[in-house]
């Protein structure tokens, strides 16, 4: 097994559109990396450059230590699962799965038959070999597409939003399944999605893309908890974002002046006073102040950030409950609490608190 490396990869389309603006990443052998970002951010173009469907205008693509920048797709040994699966409609499932090995021309018929059976076993559909793609459900087609991509033992698995066309229940099931298979055979995998939840749950590392660039690359927890930019914070999960200016800095902490509130946040990067920044607070980090303490908005006596306001909205998310709080200054704060506590109802006044340690400072 082997890795993938991109160095300064750039794609400019005829007509001048710059889709990918010099991205670098080294993907370890066996690693599952997700490219995530909004539509048009360049993630699919990046994947297509790895697969060889697009040629970079600049930079190099390496697979397994070999420079494949100018190699055509059929000489790259990657296995791709397409968004709409692209199972060949005029072939049976067996023929679909066997296609890659037949194209390679290195296998005997017996080897091909055995491998096809093995692959169908792997995706838990051993009995559909004689059917045609239109006789399978969406979820089954998806599994076959995976089996077909893996059958010729590719060096890397490329997944282009393969779950997008499945319904929610099936999608969650396939997320688990995909990850199980990937880990079972230990194949280097690049997964493209615009779905941030998928990105967070499936990957070893994820690369958040925006406007043709990687904003941040890292393990899901790190990217979620320690976003490098306002964009990453906002794109992954829900975030309360306070835009302001650093007023003062001391001992790894920064005091940030926002139009309606002054906050204290950790400042590990040592951002200097006067810098435009955003303070990011994840909604599940808030504590509820008990009613006896003082309310208000801003720093309290202990140096904790507090927000007093009225609950305007409540919705159940299943295992948790989301509240929206409106401060007197008109700012909306999103708070997520474990469900089953029955603490708050719309119309209640309450105060939530967040320690400076739970705040993240990113440069605007």
């Amino acid at each position, binding site marked *: 097994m082997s890795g993938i490396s991109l160095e300064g990869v750039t794609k400019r389309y005829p007509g001048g559109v710059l889709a990918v603006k010099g991205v670098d990443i080294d993907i370890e052998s066996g690693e599952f990396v997700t490219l995530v970002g909004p539509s048009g951010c360049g993630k699919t173009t990046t994947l297509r450059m790895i*697969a*060889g*469907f*697009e*040629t970079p205008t600049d930079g190099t693509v390496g697979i397994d230590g070999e420079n494949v920048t*100018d190699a*055509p*797709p*059929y*000489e*790259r*040994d*990657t*296995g*791709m699962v*397409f*968004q*709409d699966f*692209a199972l*060949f*409609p*005029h072939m049976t499932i067996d023929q679909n799965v066997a*296609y*890659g090995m037949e*194209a*390679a021309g290195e296998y005997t018929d017996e080897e091909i038959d055995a491998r096809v059976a093995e692959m169908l076993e792997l995706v838990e559909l051993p009995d559909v070999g004689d059917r045609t793609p239109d006789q399978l459900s969406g979820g089954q087609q998806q599994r076959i597409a995976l089996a*077909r*991509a893996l059958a*010729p033992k590719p060096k890397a698995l*490329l997944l282009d939003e393969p779950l997008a066309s499945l319904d929610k229940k099936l999608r969650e099931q396939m997320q688990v399944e995909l990850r199980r298979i990937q880990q079972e055979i230990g194949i280097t995998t690049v997964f493209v999605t615009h779905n941030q939840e998928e990105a967070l749950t499936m990957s070893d590392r994820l690369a958040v893309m925006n406007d043709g660039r990687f904003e941040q690359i890292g393990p899901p927890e790190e990217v979620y908890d320690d976003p490098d930019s306002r964009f990453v914070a906002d794109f992954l999960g829900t975030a309360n974002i306070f835009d302001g200016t650093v007023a003062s800095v001391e001992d790894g902490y920064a005091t940030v002046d926002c139009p309606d509130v002054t906050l204290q946040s950790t400042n590990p990067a040592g951002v200097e006073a006067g810098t435009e920044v955003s303070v990011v607070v994840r909604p599940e980090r808030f504590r509820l102040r008990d009613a006896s303490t003082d309310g208000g908005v801003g720093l309290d006596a202990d140096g904790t950030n507090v927000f007093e306001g009225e609950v305007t909205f409540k919705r159940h998310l299943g295992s948790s409950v989301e509240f929206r709080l409106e401060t007197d200054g008109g700012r909306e704060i999103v708070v997520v609490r474990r469900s089953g506590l029955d603490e708050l109802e719309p119309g209640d006044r309450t105060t939530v608190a967040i320690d400076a340690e739970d705040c993240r400072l990113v440069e605007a």
Partner: protein
Amino acid sequence: MATETPTDDGAGESGRAGLKANAKWYVLSYPLFWLVAVFLIPLSMLVVFSFWVNIPGGQYEMGFTLENYVRFLTSSLYLGQTWLTIELSLVTAILSLVLGYPIAYYLARMNRPWLRSLLLLTIISSLWVTYVIRAYAWQVILASGGFLSSFGVAVGILSEPRSFYPGYWGLVVGMVYVFLPFMILTLYSSIRNIDDELLEASRNLGAGPARTFRKVTYPLSKNGIASGTALVFILALGSYVLPRLLGSSAERTLPVLIEQQIMSESNYPFGAAMSIGLIVVVLAFLWVMVRFTNVTTASLSGSDEIATDGGSEATPAVGSSSSPIGMRIRSAVVDAASVVGLTYVVARIAGGVDSLVTTVDSSTRESIIWVTFRAYVAAAMAFIAVPLAIIVAVSVTPEEFLTFPPGGVSGRWYVEFFTDTSWMGALANSLGIALGAAILSTTIGGGLAFALDRFDYRFGTIYGTLGVLPILVPPVIIGVAFLVFFLEVGLAGSRTAIVVAHGIFYAPFPFILISQGLREIDRTYEEAAMNLGASPVRTIRTITYPLLRANVISGALFAFILSLNEYIIAWLLSLFLVETIPIEIFNQLRYSYPPTIAAASVVFIGLTVVVMTAIDRLSGGIWE
């Protein structure tokens, strides 16, 4: 077919820019060679020829003279006949529209799929049978002692046998008979595209059938009306066989006069000048259509209307009008012409029926309209089907002439046909030429379709128009242009010449069908194949071609059937040296009417129906 041969390199490989740039021109060069070097050059030669000097006695010499044009434009005979050609074509187009609209409407709205398929197949099959056989059928019907006359005498309407042809109205009947199917199919696809829910909505809002027709169906089928009328008009303008076989010497239309100059007078320069005159008439008409309506040259070629449902995705077309003035004039023209012509007639009838029966409840009213409709459609279908049925009847009569009622059944004319060496030679020629033409036109049309689908060309639209252009040129002109070209090249009077001419003339059919197929193929199939390690050649062989097969084969079969049935081009290029079945039938019609002709025709019609059914099966009902 050979569509994959010129494409070994490029195949959707968006990767390597250098290779791609070469492949793109490599792929295009093959169809362009035929369409430019072997099609546009003969057409240009025609223009040049029209200025050359004729030497009486079948010679001509290079030079520059306006004499040919002067002769054409100052002779009251030629101008008169030009006007007659236009008038005849207009009458044919308008009659076809009025007769065809109700049939198309009925076909599009009926509920029984099997009956619709049967009726459509009847209409479509008759469409492809050579004009020669169909004109012959009307000769049999209209001749003195023919079907109509002996029937008239038998039932006592006529006191003595009389002939209804040659003459103006006999010719009009024949023309409408031949071109009505084009009109019906064009209208059919445009009416079929109208969403049923729109009609239901109209009814739900309280509009009766007449009002629904006037306010919903008619406006939405305007485009079909415009393209159907244009198509029939252009086809009628270029028609040679019908005026020649059903018209008297007073009805010699421009194509007949052109053929006469070429084949009888051997006055090539003057024939060329007249051909240019005919092209000018067609172009002037096309200009008016394209300028003032939504009709494009692509949709005029008919096949995308006929072969796909409505031809909703227009193939590259010369610009359609969008200027405000154009729009205004356009609607004025369409309204003036077709509102008067069609709505007036049909809606008045519908309205009349409507008001007559308003006292009855509405479901009865609708069923009355529906029944009237059916009776009419039955009559019209008889008009389409009976002439060919009569040919079948003639072919099995023991007598030399068909009498009414026929006097028995005999297979002697078939025996005669299959044992006659000149008929068999003609049949072999026809099949050989059609096979060659089918292969040639499929490679040209397929190559062009592939190139335009896969690569971006600076003048892609022009190449696309070039792909449909041949079929828009009246065949008699194609024939004359190729004749002068092949005379220079030294190929005239050979089967090869006819194969090349047919191959180019019918290339638009495979071109349109294969373009459509390529548009419908999901490109990710090919990407998936290449991702799995398939080379471009392997991808085309195992993925692209199998997915495209029905379109490729249908296109080839279309070209085959059309070439098989083509007369005038083959005749002009034959220089009396090559005989095909249509030529043989035509020649025999000049002297006598042996029922062997009918037997030959039936064999030919059978062949045509078989191939058409094959196309239909192959493509899973492309008529739908």
